[in-house]
């Protein structure tokens, strides 16, 4: 399989007396792969996702996206890579509260590729066509996360980073979101890198972080 993301010796330290959030992580994510990163709170899952997405820079080590080292790319180029090739799903949904579900899904179209028809199709696909004109406060938490999922996919990214996407949801909504994430990932050929505490879908590859180091799952 072709490597989409490659991380080598990835280390991230914070503060003047360095606290190590991530230590020497080597990891490869293939195109279209579903990769779950598990581990307890503070194990470095969010840090790993931020580094892989180019939102943060490592203290040491390298992240390559399709062979292009993110550390050598300018902030503008990293933004371009996120805009064109990456989607994001957050634990707390991060929907803009004064925008409707439809407007939230269309948010990446403000500055990236994609079209309104694709946004409508995804709203239908996640079961929100009838509630597209509602604002986040008028949606359930599960519906909010489904809207966030549609937003992550609207510009046809190569990879979706999902940081504990089901942690704030009830069990039924969790199942729905995982189902959509895996199905849509497969249908669209999108790699999914998700940090989670949940029981994981059968087809996923799982890696486990413990105190910033990668362990065998």
């Amino acid at each position, binding site marked *: 399989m072709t490597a989409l993301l490659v991380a080598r010796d990835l280390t991230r330290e914070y503060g003047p007396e360095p606290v190590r959030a991530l230590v020497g992580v080597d990891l490869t994510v293939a195109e279209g792969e579903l990769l779950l990163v598990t581990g307890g709170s503070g194990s470095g899952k969010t840090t790993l996702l931020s580094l892989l997405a180019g939102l943060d820079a490592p203290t040491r080590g390298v992240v390559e996206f399709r062979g292009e080292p993110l550390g050598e790319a300018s902030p503008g180029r990293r933004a371009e890579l996120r805009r064109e090739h990456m989607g994001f799903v957050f634990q707390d949904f991060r929907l803009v509260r004064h925008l409707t579900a439809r*407007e939230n899904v269309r948010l990446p179209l403000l500055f990236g590729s994609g079209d309104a028809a694709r946004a409508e199709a995804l709203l239908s696909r996640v079961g929100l066509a009838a509630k597209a004109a509602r604002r986040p406060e008028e949606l359930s938490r599960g519906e909010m996360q489904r809207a966030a999922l549609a937003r992550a996919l609207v510009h046809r990214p190569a990879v979706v980073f999902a940081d504990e996407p089901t942690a704030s949801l009830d069990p039924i909504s969790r199942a729905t979101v995982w189902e959509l994430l895996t199905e849509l990932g497969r249908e669209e050929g999108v790699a999914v890198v998700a940090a989670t505490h949940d029981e994981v879908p059968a087809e996923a590859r799982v890696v486990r972080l413990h105190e910033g180091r990668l362990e065998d799952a």
Partner: protein
Amino acid sequence: MKRAGRVLAWALAGLRYRPGRAALAGLAVGAATALAALTLGFREGYERALARNVEALGYQVLVTGKGCPHEAATLLLRGGSIPMYIQDDVARHVEAQPEVAASTRFLLQALPAQHAAPDATQLYLGIDEHFLALKPGAELQRGGWFSSPVADEALLGYQVAEYRRLSVGDELRVLGSTLRVAGVLDQSGTQDDGTVFLPLRRAQELFERPDRVTGIGVRLHDLGQAAAFVERVYDVPSVQVVRMSQVQETILGVLRGVQALLYAFAASSLAAAALGVAGVALLSWSERTPELGLLRALGCPAGTLFRLAWAEWLLVSAVGVAGGVALAFLLRGAADAWVRANLAFVPVGGVIALSGGVLLRSAAAALAVTAVAAALPAWRAATRSPLATMRGGAL
């Protein structure tokens, strides 16, 4: 084009975030725009009205008895008795000067007005046969000229006829004499509309000023001869002479102090509106930090984010400016009344001219100032680190 539409849609949607706050900022911009428009409109309107009033006199030079010629000219424009007179022989001497193309003699008197406010006066102007010919566009609306230079007749200004409901053939009493209305003048938008005109000689009898006139209006063959004419007439001991352009300049010179004050006030209100927009936008973007972080995380370039953040407050400013223009029209009457109540001399006719140029200049100034003010918060919003702003809390 499609992208511009999306930016506009985003800016419109952004107004749903605390709409009351955006409305207040827009209101401040609107008030400042209206004030700027009224101030600029006052300058243009006053100058235009004054020029129209002077032009309507029909002569370029005014010759009056000794005293302050500017005061005499202002009284003439505003209406009021000028207690200075020119004798008949002196008047003939003035009229005989080679630069004079045409001239008209007049006697101006004011009497307490009947059926009006206690301090109101009615102006009476004794005029000769050249009076109407000198006035550009002046015509009788109905009736005709006096039947003789000593007839017990009057011509009425348009407003006098309207207000006192008098028409041709009706009678009016002046100082115990009964005068018949011979004609009514067309509306001129000047002091003439409120004046009763009498034949000069009859007026001299009536007001007991035989062979005397208040002034002589002179039109020269060539305006370039004005200096020579003024110099020659200056030597006549009992008269003084002033060019109407000088009067205009003197009045405008006095007005400039008031205008400077109003400009300062308008500029202060524009600055306050700009500060308001900047403050509200900074507060808004500070509250919406996580939203900015989200856009940065999704890959929004800093330049685009600047435009998005800027567009939102430009829209508020633009709506405010449009409202301000409408407000200026609404307040024009009140502003005109304020000017009349507070300035010593105000020409007849509207003195607040909200022309296209005035509105364009006011709108452009308000937009420019608020655009600059909104740029700072937009720049701050655009240059935040995506990760730091992502950690700014719930959206």
